[in-house]
């Protein structure tokens, strides 16, 4: 192909941004179609990026050339590492962001990329030829030709919001839904489902009594997300913690019949991990109080997001309930909380590339795949954007493994297991969690970003030099012996002393402490000393995890031809044939994770693969 690939990205949310930037970075001409260019990069729910399991995704994006980490560093007003007192594998970064700053940073980023054009339109339908998408048609009547289409429509498809009995056709507060597209996709053979999510009210900060709240400051010093392009960051705002009271619970219980969640008005399934305040009160009646986090929406505004109070009760009930909380006795609500129901496409209809199985070159990413969260959306957007370009070029697909990234875990979970509630990342979903740490993110993934051309050579070289320093330092620590006389630990009486590595393994001993033992350690940057400390302190566990990963890779490296005709394979159980046909696993490893598949099914499949390849 001589001309550049043309890619349409439908939607300007967190998935759409990463998809557009990745595709454009790889040389595609991208048209981003959005109903409202001013809404590009909008944070529809809480004003924070990252969190446990999610911070890792943002770091992974940064390591591969994604944008979310950079945007968060620019818009962040409070930075924090969660689980700081636990081990390195479960520490995650999170930043409170200025909502407006984030949006403008995202829009600036897109505007600065010459080969991304923005079109203000609502996509009404797709043009399909020979099972392949070739164009999209907007409400404006315009036809946009495309080599690939990435759908990142978020919660907008056939969306309805609920505030008490009040129902509106909206994809987000005050924004119209996208109509028609999911109907066409259904007629093309897609299965369509319905999910629900919710958001809490926004409050006027000047009406809150902060003296009755606990302060939640950021980390000192703050740490940003991007290691490739770090910028100066600062903590500029605090969060606050307060609690519901038994009065609050009573008021909600008394009005429960007016909640669309409890009176049958909402049928979509909501997430278990992010229940509405109604659910918390009704399902955990024994708890005397629930936490509420007050998070600033930004620097130039008094608006406050009240995390933990997601609700679809009528606005006046929400306000009454809030006012039962001492710190919110006189609170003013700037916007009520609401629930939104929207169409999604069960993600077992996708390949690991996020290309859809029914239609070629049509990619789905973000909430339409049944996920929740900005970070999860962004991770999928990146993978869809990269794969769209690779597919048009006829190159090998870009598939991240479960053993190398959270993004890989997420997409494999979605595609192989499907979802029955909005999918959110948790570290416990990653069976190789001890390897998938924030500190080694670049080492796991930067090579991919470099290979596909999204991490520039100079940035990659800088990373490689750091890794060399780390390795050199570890090797030196393993062989540098400290005489017994210089070791201040009575427990260690070994003749001939101990090596620096052995000393570093002692609980409580840090990299910096080693200088006190008479060792001459050349000063190194913090990122190096941290990596050395982790590698040595957790060596035993890291090695055990590495062995499990080696085991895991054996089945994972055995590809299954995409066109394998399972129904024609003898010896395979009927159930296995059906499941393989539906999921069309990419590798034997993925096949083995399909619910209900046994290892004898895998053995039979393996025989056929080997006999056919011989």
């Amino acid at each position: 192909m001589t001309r550049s690939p043309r890619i349409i990205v439908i939607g300007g949310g967190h998935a759409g941004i990463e998809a557009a930037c990745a595709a454009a970075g790889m040389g595609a001409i991208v048209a981003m179609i959005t109903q409202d260019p001013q809404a590009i990069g909008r944070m529809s729910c809480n004003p924070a990026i990252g969190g446990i399991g999610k911070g890792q995704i943002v770091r992974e994006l940064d390591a591969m050339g994604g944008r979310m980490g950079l945007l968060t560093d620019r818009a962040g007003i409070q930075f924090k590492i969660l689980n700081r007192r636990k081990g390195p594998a479960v520490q995650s970064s999170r930043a409170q962001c200025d909502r407006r700053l984030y949006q403008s940073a995202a829009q600036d980023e897109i505007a600065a990329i010459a080969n991304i054009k923005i079109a203000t339109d609502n996509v009404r339908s797709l043009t399909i030829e020979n099972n392949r998408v070739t164009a999209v048609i907007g409400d404006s009547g315009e036809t946009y030709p495309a080599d690939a289409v990435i759908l990142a429509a978020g919660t907008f498809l056939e969306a309805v919001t609920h505030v008490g009995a009040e129902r509106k056709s909206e994809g987000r507060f005050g924004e119209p839904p996208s109509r028609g597209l999911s109907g066409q996709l259904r007629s093309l053979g897609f299965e369509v489902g319905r999910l629900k999510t919710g958001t809490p009210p926004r409050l006027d900060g000047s009406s809150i009594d902060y003296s009755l709240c606990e302060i939640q400051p950021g980390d000192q010093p703050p740490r940003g997300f991007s290691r490739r392009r770090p910028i100066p960051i600062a903590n500029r705002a605090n969060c606050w913690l307060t609690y519901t009271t038994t009065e609050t619970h009573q008021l909600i219980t008394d009005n429960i019949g007016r909640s669309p969640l409890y009176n049958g008005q909402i049928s979509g399934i909501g997430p278990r991990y992010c229940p509405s305040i109604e659910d918390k009160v009704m399902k955990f009646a024994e708890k005397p109080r629930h936490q509420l986090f007050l998070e600033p929406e930004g620097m130039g505004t008094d608006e406050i997001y009240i995390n933990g109070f997601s609700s679809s009760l009528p606005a006046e009930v929400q306000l009454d309930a809030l006012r039962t909380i001492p710190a919110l006795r006189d609170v003013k609500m700037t916007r009520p909380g609401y629930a939104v129901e929207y169409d999604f496409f069960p993600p077992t209809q996708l390949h690991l590339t996020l290309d859809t199985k029914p239609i070629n070159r049509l990619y789905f990413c973000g909430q339409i795949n049944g996920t929740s969260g900005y970070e999860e959306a962004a991770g999928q957007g990146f993978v869809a954007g990269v794969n769209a370009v690779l597919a048009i070029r006829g190159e090998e697909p870009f598939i991240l493994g479960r053993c190398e990234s959270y993004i890989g875990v997420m997409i494999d979970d979605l595609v192989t297991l499907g979802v029955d509630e909005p999918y959110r990342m948790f570290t416990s979903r990653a069976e190789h969690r001890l390897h998938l740490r924030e500190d080694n993110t670049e080492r796991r993934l930067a090579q991919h970003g470099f290979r596909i051309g999204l991490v520039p050579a100079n940035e990659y070289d800088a990373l490689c030099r750091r890794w060399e320093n780390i390795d050199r330092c570890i090797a030196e620590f393993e062989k540098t012996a400290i005489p017994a006389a210089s070791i201040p630990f009575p427990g260690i009486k070994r003749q001939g002393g101990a090596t620096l590595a052995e000393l570093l393994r002692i609980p409580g001993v840090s990299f910096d402490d080693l200088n006190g033992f008479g060792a001459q350690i050349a000063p190194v940057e913090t990122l190096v000393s941290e990596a050395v400390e982790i590698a040595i302190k957790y060596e035993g566990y890291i090695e055990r995890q590495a062995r499990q990963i080696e085991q895991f890779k054996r089945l994972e490296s055995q590809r299954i031809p995409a066109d394998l005709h399972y129904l024609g394979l003898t010896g395979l159980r009927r159930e296995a044939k059906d499941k393989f046909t539906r999921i069309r696993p990419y590798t034997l490893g993925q096949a083995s994770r399909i619910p209900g598949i046994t290892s004898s099914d895998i053995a039979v499949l393996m025989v056929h693969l080997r006999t056919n390849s011989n």
Partner: protein
Amino acid sequence: MSPSSAHVDLTKTICAIATPPGRGGLGIVRLSGPDAIAIADRIFQGHSKLSEQEGYTVHHGFAVDSRTHAEIDEVLATLFRAPRSYTGEDLVEFSAHGGQLVLSRIVDACIAAEAIPAQPGEFTLRAFLNGRIDLTEAEAVADLIAAKTDESSAAALAQLKGQLHEEILALRAGIIAALARLEIGIDFTEEDIAPSEIAGVRDRIQEVRGRVLRLLRSYDRGRVLREGFTVVLAGPPNSGKSTLFNRLAQDERAIVTDIPGTTRDILREYINLNGWPVCILDTAGMRESADVVERIGVERAEHAIKEADGVIWLIDSTTDVTPQLPVIDEKSNRTPWAICCNKSDVSSVLSIVSQRLTSKSEIASEHGQPVEHDIGGPDTPVRPRCDDTRVLEISAKTGAGIDELLKTVSAWIEPIGTARSGGTFAINDRHRRALQSADAALASALESLARADGVELAAFDARNAALHLGEIIGETTTEDVLTEVFKNFCIGK
């Protein structure tokens, strides 16, 4: 890995004794799978590493147990490289000097080096799977496997139904409950969950571990029924082991002489003690010796002590003014011991022996203060403790004190006999391996819990324990943990 109850996993390396049981001159242990050569190198000491050798070659060397570095036997290792082997995988065969004991020890060493025990017919099954066995149609192969696995999973299911299945489910549920509490502390760190709800993880894990150990003991019960409770007679040369052996066996099988070091190999005899089969092993006397053959005998005796269910240590009351007491490692310290001052018809040293045994408090002062920052070093050998050890006065020659000795041995068997009222679980070797792995993982989890930063490490261990138990019944873990979390805790800011 895969959620299944059938057990063909070609990513694992399997091993087994490949020759039929019996007292043949030579026996073969076979290792097959992707790690076969690496594992073989861990237990093989020859002129060069097998990993550097070509296929179809034979190498002379010694099989060693990589845990103890103890030599097991002189062996020939035959190397086959994939796909040119019986199974189509990398394959190593060790030919050893026969004897089930030696071959079992080689298999055991392979398993310690991360092989898994092969199931019956698995080498052949792998040969099928790898296309090595010449069948004309692939379909026929697949049918065969399907039939075979259907058959075996039906058999496995029948076996698993009932008590064992229930028990494993309960244990797994216990671990998942503990794991859910650990994961809450990790994934939902900002949630308002009372520490009391998360506490108790240690207790839960300990409780599960206790039950895993009980299951393993019930394996012991089955094993004792099948193979006998093994009692080893040991002690310095000429302390009268063979005389006692003959008295217990009521037979003149062991050659009894006054020349120290007469017994150079191990003799065994079964006796019936209150309905329990007891296997008595007579071993070579423990002493430094220049005689190569005698030294091998001593090594074998030491090994037999390690594997024993109980040990009778004999002392010659007439000659041992400073009686030689056994020195044992921590592992065999759990084995019950009886110290018999023999030849009581001639002399008595009972009081001296009793005084020389270390008491628990002495052990504590010697090694007890656990070295807080242990950075290595072998386990220090300890003596049996007087609190757990009976000291008896006997005369193997006249039979005095023998009844008392047999009562002592009966008391050893008793806990195994009553390990589980209501029948023995059908625990096979595969189950036992899985249970042992689960036990090790749980032990590691308890250690990790003591670390300030150990929550995720404990979770890693607990998850592995659940996976090992899951291997027995074919269940996976991740989603179960989340379900448990959401069911029992109010999560969500």
